[in-house]
């Protein structure tokens, strides 16, 4: 049985509380990442970061359509998806700055955020790897009859790697309860996706190869994304198999912190900045009669939460060096010999 998704993306059936929750979620992602970037430039955050500024509507639209127990699989550009599932900012920031209390003890860093208790089953830094892994999780839900759904986010560049093909085919054959979400932010790292891809829509134009329908959604419209999420997640939960969604969006910054993104035409950047998902949702809420004060209150709360996370991060001690050799094995240690 196939689902008619032609009415997806109209924003129909979204109530006020949910709209506000989506707005708050996007703001949490945005404000957290903006501050993270500043802390990076100030030298507090080490290593690298890959920001999803501009792409928050995809994370917020899907996370608000998922149930507790559903699984998120995302990429190294995974701060948004992690926060959107309700992982608190403080342990995430502690992970980025490498201090005690960090989400994964400082062993993973920005590219590997994971919080199993929130259903965030990992941020994967080798392009494409998590698509087959999400299929396996979906198989597990199917086998155990738990009605859990795996939602797997990846970039446009992933559609050109072999694991994409293997995972989509296997998921379709097994009717696995997984929703694949391509965040087409127009660039694979530094290169425009259209210049290295044989089709116009890197994900949607490939869907028919797996017997799936092409699904495209405005990735900068959180309510449209939410609607698409609800329909595809419901379909998976009902046992009607996987979906492949292409959410068209834009990475407002460069690929990683080392990249100012100067290769992007000014006109293109300006056009997409004008379509920033967060002011758009704010205006929609005002138009729907939400009071300016209510929105300002949300903004103040999110700002305070980011400030609190930063305060804790600045005061937290470094990890114990002895923890560098823990948790290789299930016994908590790293011993390999007698």
């Amino acid at each position, binding site marked *: 049985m196939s689902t008619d998704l032609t009415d997806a993306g109209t924003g129909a059936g979204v109530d006020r509380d949910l709209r506000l929750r989506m707005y708050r979620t996007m703001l949490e992602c945005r404000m957290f990442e903006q501050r993270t970037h500043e802390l990076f430039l100030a030298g507090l955050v080490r290593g690298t970061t890959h920001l999803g500024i501009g792409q928050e509507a995809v994370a917020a639209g899907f996370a608000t359509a998922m149930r507790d127990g559903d699984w998120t699989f995302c990429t190294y550009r995974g701060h948004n998806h992690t926060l959107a599932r309700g992982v608190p900012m403080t342990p995430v920031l502690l992970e980025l700055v490498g201090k005690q209390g960090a989400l994964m003890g400082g062993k993973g860093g920005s590219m590997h955020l994971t*919080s199993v208790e929130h259903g965030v089953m990992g941020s994967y830094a080798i392009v*494409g*790897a998590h698509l087959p*892994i999400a299929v*396996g999780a979906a198989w597990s839900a199917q086998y155990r009859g738990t009605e859990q759904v795996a939602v797997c986010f990846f970039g446009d560049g992933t559609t050109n790697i*072999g694991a994409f093909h*293997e995972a989509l*085919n296997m998921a379709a054959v097994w009717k696995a309860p997984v929703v694949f979400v391509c965040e087409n932010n127009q660039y694979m790292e530094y290169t425009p996706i259209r210049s290295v891809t044989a089709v116009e829509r890197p994900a949607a134009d490939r869907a028919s190869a797996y017997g799936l329908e092409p699904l495209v959604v405005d990735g900068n419209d959180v309510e449209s994304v939410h609607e698409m999420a609800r329909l595809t997640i419901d379909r998976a939960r009902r046992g009607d198999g996987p979906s492949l969604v292409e959410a068209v969006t834009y990475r407002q910054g460069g690929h990683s912190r080392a990249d100012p993104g100067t290769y992007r035409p000014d006109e293109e950047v300006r056009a997409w900045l004008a379509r920033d998902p967060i002011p758009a949702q704010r205006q929609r809420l005002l138009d729907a009669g939400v009071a300016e004060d209510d929105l300002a209150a949300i903004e103040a709360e999110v700002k305070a939460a980011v400030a609190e996370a930063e305060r804790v991060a600045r005061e937290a001690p470094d990890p114990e060096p002895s923890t560098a050799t823990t948790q290789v094995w299930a016994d908590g240690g790293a011993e390999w010999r007698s």
Partner: protein
Amino acid sequence: MAELTYRQAVARGIAQEMERDDMVVLLGEDIAAAGGVFKTTEGLLATFGPERVRDTPISEQAIIGAAMGAAMTGLRPVAELMFSDFFGVAWDMVANQIAKTRYMTDGQVALPLVIRTANGGGLRFGAQHSQSIENWAMAIPGLKVVAPSTPHDMVGLMAAAIRDPDPVIVCEHKALFADKADVADGEIVEELGRARVVREGSDATVVALAAMVPRALAAAEQLAAGGGPSLEVIDLRTLVPLDVSTVLQSVEKTTRLFTVEENPRLCGWGAEVVSIVAEEAIWSLDGPVVRITTPHVPLAANPVLEDAQMPSTERIVKTVQRTMDAAR
């Protein structure tokens, strides 16, 4: 007690664990309806059904990736890579994902999974279907590596691998599939990380693995029959965890050490064993330590060439004899 081939022992070990734990599931190419290209999973589909025994497309990344996703969400998958050479296709999943995820998540994610694979040479399959890859796996922190040499050990170590809370690679040696031995009835579970002294001796320790174990044993018998040195033969059975204690105890007794390794020379498991003995038991040694390995070349398809490459019983005998004679 029943006579069992090494090949049948694979299915028996898996079936034993599938009987006791519904969360054990199988996936791989041709493993269900066809019973495996080496007939190592024959009968499992009929006994446990298609929900638990799944044929996959030729998609090694998806097979191993799906095993990982299933393991992190409550199943205990046993994935087959038809030939160990195919680890090359799925190496991101094995080395970057499965091996590192527990560590990177500081223990949040458990990966109780097994990757079974037909490993090793001697079947004239050529360089891409004959390799001994156990030392590839051994080089990556976070993977356990098992390579049984007998039907009994195949049952017991397979069971131990499936019960283990960490990822385990089980190397099934292609040249041993037809080997037969009596195997006890009832549940068999061995322990990972325990070597076995398979022949006691007094003059030299020979450490071997998988198909090299019967060759080392045959060499020991030939030497004994000819009045040569008395060899103690150790079957390592598991490379990670590595049973160093059994090797050190033996070397302290015999004062000499040889390794017999099917893998190409560089970075073979024997190099690690030898380095540990050099660090911890150098004063027990009365002569040079010698590694008997395949030369550092790809394996050839031609029987004459392949036989010239892999350590043979004859080469073990000659190498031991020459080394021991030179020391007198």
